[in-house]
């Protein structure tokens, strides 16, 4: 027989790793207790979290329980997620921009195939910033839109034309970059093949 304290502690751990609402019935089965008992433990926990004014709360959704943040703290979370300081173009955006610059004209499908990750929003953002523009249609089936860089892009880097882009093979030398280690995650970059 597992003690109430142990079960309640376990429920916290379970909700934490589960993420999604955790079904009371599932939880009850794990400990071989009745649904009623399991429900009561969850409800007690929820009540404790509320009473103590914790930053993490428990939400009940149709006989399931889930850990969520306290709604009072939304403002702080927003502050954390949106730094006031100037935010730089994300690594993701940089990478898509680089692919467009060197591969242009290029379809979205090709960019996505190269990066293994969808890029609709990133591409949209780059177009909004006038760094990337549509550059006709591919003759491939479906005639997908081709993308290329803009004059603003050239101007930003002080290039006269695209031929001035650093040579692909030379880029490491020119920029004096260290060879990146495979698999190392640099910030938000996720190149997956």
């Amino acid at each position, binding site marked *: 027989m597992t003690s109430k304290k142990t079960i309640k502690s376990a429920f916290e751990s379970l909700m934490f790793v589960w993420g999604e609402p955790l079904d009371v019935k599932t939880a009850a089965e794990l400990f071989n207790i009745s649904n009623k008992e399991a429900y009561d433990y969850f409800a007690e926990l929820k009540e404790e979290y509320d009473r103590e004014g914790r930053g993490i709360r428990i939400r009940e959704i149709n006989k399931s329980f889930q850990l969520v943040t306290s709604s009072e703290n939304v403002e702080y979370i*927003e502050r954390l997620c949106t730094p006031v300081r100037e935010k730089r173009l994300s690594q993701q955006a*940089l990478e898509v921009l680089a692919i467009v610059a060197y591969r242009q004209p290029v379809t979205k499908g090709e960019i996505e195939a190269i990066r293994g990750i969808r890029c609709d929003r990133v591409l949209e953002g780059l177009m909004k910033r006038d760094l990337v523009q549509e550059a006709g249609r591919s003759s*491939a089936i479906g005639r997908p839109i081709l993308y290329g860089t803009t004059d603003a892009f050239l101007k930003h880097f002080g290039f006269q034309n695209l031929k001035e882009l650093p040579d692909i093979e030379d*880029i490491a030398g020119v920029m004096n970059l260290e060879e990146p280690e*495979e698999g190392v995650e640099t910030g938000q*970059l996720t190149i997956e093949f």
Partner: protein
Amino acid sequence: MSYKVKIDLFEGPFDLLVYLIETSEMNIYDIQVAAITRQYMDYIQEMQRLDVEVATEFMVLAAVLIEIKSKMLLPRIKPEGVAGGEGDPRDELVERILEYKRFKRAAALLEDRQEAMEAVLEKPKEDLSPYTKEPDEYLNLDIRQFAAAFHLFLHKRKKVEEIRKNYARVERQRMTIEDRIQSILRLFRQKALKKITFRQLVEEEDTRFNRVVTFVSLLEMARQRVIKVKQQETFGEIVIGIGEEAGEKKVHDQ
């Protein structure tokens, strides 16, 4: 041999040496060099007999052991007036073994911690997008960042090229029988052809996939009597002519 152990059990020459010293229950400060050297050499020979590639590092330590063994045979000379003299020829080896064992022990401690930490679980980051108020992204990129981003991508350039190739192929392969039927009909109409040979049609296509599509399309067209197919002799030229039903088949002009 009394110690048939697999070579890959040992991380290096010191690992092997420590194993031998420990299994023969020798005092580390009084290593019987002759005995241990013999065991070490036996072991290496056994590995070689089993065709296991013996790293040169193992041979280096073997040479060191033999050297110490030979020094042990010489009488130790303590020049008068010089305190201590040359010391035990085994000293350096003992030091190195102790040093190695120290880290072997540390590795074991880390291993235990690693296992213990498996009981501690993290949660993934929440989806932060609801909290990101219109990301105030402002363009402040410099050429280094830009190049770095591209460089990462280049790092796997070969793979990228492969993907690109595959990707292009996938696109081209999307030619369907419907498409091909239309294009063949168009060919007849536009050039006001009466006949065309199978070879001519197929030669237009550059991939095996498209040639197969062409062939299947022709079969389908023949079945629908859109075309007539004639072959004068076995393995001879297949000649395709327009069939009775061709007029009813709608031909879309692009």
